[in-house]
């Protein structure tokens, strides 16, 4: 085994290297994915132009990047709150659907209220639903020590069956027969932010969530407790922190924010609930939270970048005929590359 010829020494990387990390990450990701692009009979440089630059060059596509970023900001922030406390909530995908379910229902019963009243009510509705769906895995983890990674993954599968049962049962569209819920009332939809675009008020809600979570994590004693629990349960307990309760609250806030992501997708984009509402926003949120270094502002920035990747994957697919799944591969590659980079940032390689 030739591996231990080098030794990693714990040390801070020099500042110039930290600045280079995004550049190196992008370059490595480009090299690693270019083989696939060539297999797809396209030029990697041309493909990356359509992937990362073309979407930013036009007004319509730039706004579309923000549209795609909106749910990702929310799932990224949701995952961050849980991960900071050491609770591995992999269930943001399911909690998103719980919030979407609540929004689709509220959207049909709140027809009489005005939009400024409907928005806070539905934000709360989405939050409560996401929280409720996060409750069982959180309780099992905190009080019965059942691994939350496994239970949240399993509950992600379960809620898709529930949604399918509802959409094929009571909510099946009576006219078309499609498995989709009735359209939500006009007044419960999120208003457009820019004329003739899909950009909606959900982006503002997402940015507020970033600000609130940033404030909680960095400026409140509760945020300090969260981070203490995440750094080590025993130490936190020794410091007099109620570890179980802190972790439970983090898990529920996390689920709640993911639920809001479901609400903004229903009320801002689709106007009804469909089974394919999310192409994995909950899972992408985990990548985003990691790449943002579990720092609320970093997570917001990394979500915007992933909005670009999602939009760009469609642009490159339309322009060059490369399968749209290039987006997924690129996201995953980038995650793995940056995980390695984080390590180099904390350690220095020394020849033994």
């Amino acid at each position, binding site marked *: *085994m030739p*591996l*231990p010829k080098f030794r990693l020494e714990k040390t801070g990387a020099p500042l110039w290297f930290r600045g280079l990390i995004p550049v190196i990450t992008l370059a490595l990701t480009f090299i690693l994915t270019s083989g*696939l692009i060539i*297999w*797809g009979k396209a030029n990697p440089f041309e493909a990356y132009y359509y992937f990362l630059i073309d979407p930013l060059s036009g007004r319509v596509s730039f706004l579309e990047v923000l549209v795609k970023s909106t749910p990702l900001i929310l799932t990224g922030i949701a995952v961050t709150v849980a991960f900071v406390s050491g609770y*591995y909530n*992999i269930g943001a995908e399911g909690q998103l659907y719980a919030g979407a379910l609540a929004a689709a229902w509220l959207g049909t019963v709140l027809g009489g209220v005005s939009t400024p009243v409907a928005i806070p009510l539905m934000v709360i509705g989405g939050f409560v639903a996401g929280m409720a769906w996060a409750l069982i895995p959180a309780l*099992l983890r905190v009080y*019965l*020590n*059942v*691994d939350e*990674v*496994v*239970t949240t*993954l*399993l*509950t*992600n*599968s*379960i809620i898709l*069956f*529930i949604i*399918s*049962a509802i959409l*094929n*049962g009571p909510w099946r569209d009576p006219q078309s027969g499609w498995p989709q819920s009735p359209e939500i009332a006009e007044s419960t939809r999120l208003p457009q932010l820019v004329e003739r675009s899909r950009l909606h008020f959900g982006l503002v809600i997402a940015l507020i969530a970033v600000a609130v979570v940033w404030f909680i994590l960095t400026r409140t004693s509760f945020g300090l407790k969260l981070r203490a629990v995440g750094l080590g349960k025993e130490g936190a307990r020794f410091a007099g922190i109620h570890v179980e309760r802190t972790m439970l609250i983090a898990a529920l806030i996390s689920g709640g924010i993911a639920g809001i992501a479901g609400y903004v997708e229903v009320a801002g984009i689709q106007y009804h609930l469909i089974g394919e509402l999310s192409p994995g926003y909950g*899972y992408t949120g*985990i*990548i985003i939270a*990691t790449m943002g270094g579990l720092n609320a502002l970093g997570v917001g920035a990394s979500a915007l970048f992933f909005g670009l990747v999602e939009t760009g994957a469609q642009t490159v697919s339309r322009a060059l005929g490369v*399968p*749209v*799944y*290039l*987006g*997924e*591969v690129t*996201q*995953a*590659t980038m*995650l*793995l590359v940056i*995980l*390695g980079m*984080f*390590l180099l940032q904390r350690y220095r390689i020394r020849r033994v």
Partner: protein
Amino acid sequence: MVAAMFIATLTAATLRVATPILLAAIGETFSERAGVLNLGIEGIMFLGAFVGFYVADITGSLWTGLLMAIVSGALLGILMAFFTVSLRVNQHVSGLGITLLASGLALYAFRLNYGGRSTPPSIPPFEQIIHLSNIPVLGTVLNQYLLTYIAFLVIVPLSWWVMYRTSFGLKVRAVGENPEAADAAGINVFRIRYIVLAAGGGLMAMGGAFLSLAQLGAFTHGIIAGRGWVAIALVIFGNWNPSKVMLGSLIFGGTYALQLRLQAMGLQLPIPYETFLALPYIVTIIALVVAGRKASYPAALLKPYHRE
């Protein structure tokens, strides 16, 4: 006789449904016993299902497809080892990264090679091997794919034997319980973890390939549908012991087979059929709660090993 036939078809379906999850869960059992939680399992199964299908389609050989699927799983296992053992990255995040990478690769390659077709591509799958049509009940139960026999009669006993009766198995358990002591005793912690993750990845991919090469003869987007996560739950339920993991896979398989039978019988039930689809997942969570209370996790699970 009707009841006997019902039980026979149910048992046969239970074994069939349990096979891919059992294979993957045995792979995960070894990985976790060596101290690494491999959340790449779902993606490794998915890519294994695709590679098996694709290679079998272009070469015309199901066995070549299966072999290449196992190789793809072993490579992803090595990649997982590189991140968690050599770079010592968080196991949860790198495992999910592997799942996303493998799923993305499979979907990309599938669209690239079969994207233009109007009908989903299919291949003639493996055949069930025993035809004892004159023995009604037993014949139904025994008529299984060769891979099912291999999983239950070769891989489970073999993995139990390796785990508890060989020095390699002892090393694996030592590395997962107390890597410092193992290292002091002259065991190469890194090498053991690399080997186990590669072999485990191969088994996971074999489980995925069973679905595309035997059960379906096709590859679809929903082919794995959370079976990898179920396998992870079964490992905890089975207390990291291959024979108990097999028991867990039979409980899951039985629940799943029962809902298949009930659906096939076309009973008019007052509850939606999705209830039955969700049932195996709910049963898994309950089993996890019951077993999880006395679960003894490998002590070094999730902990990277630093050689000082």
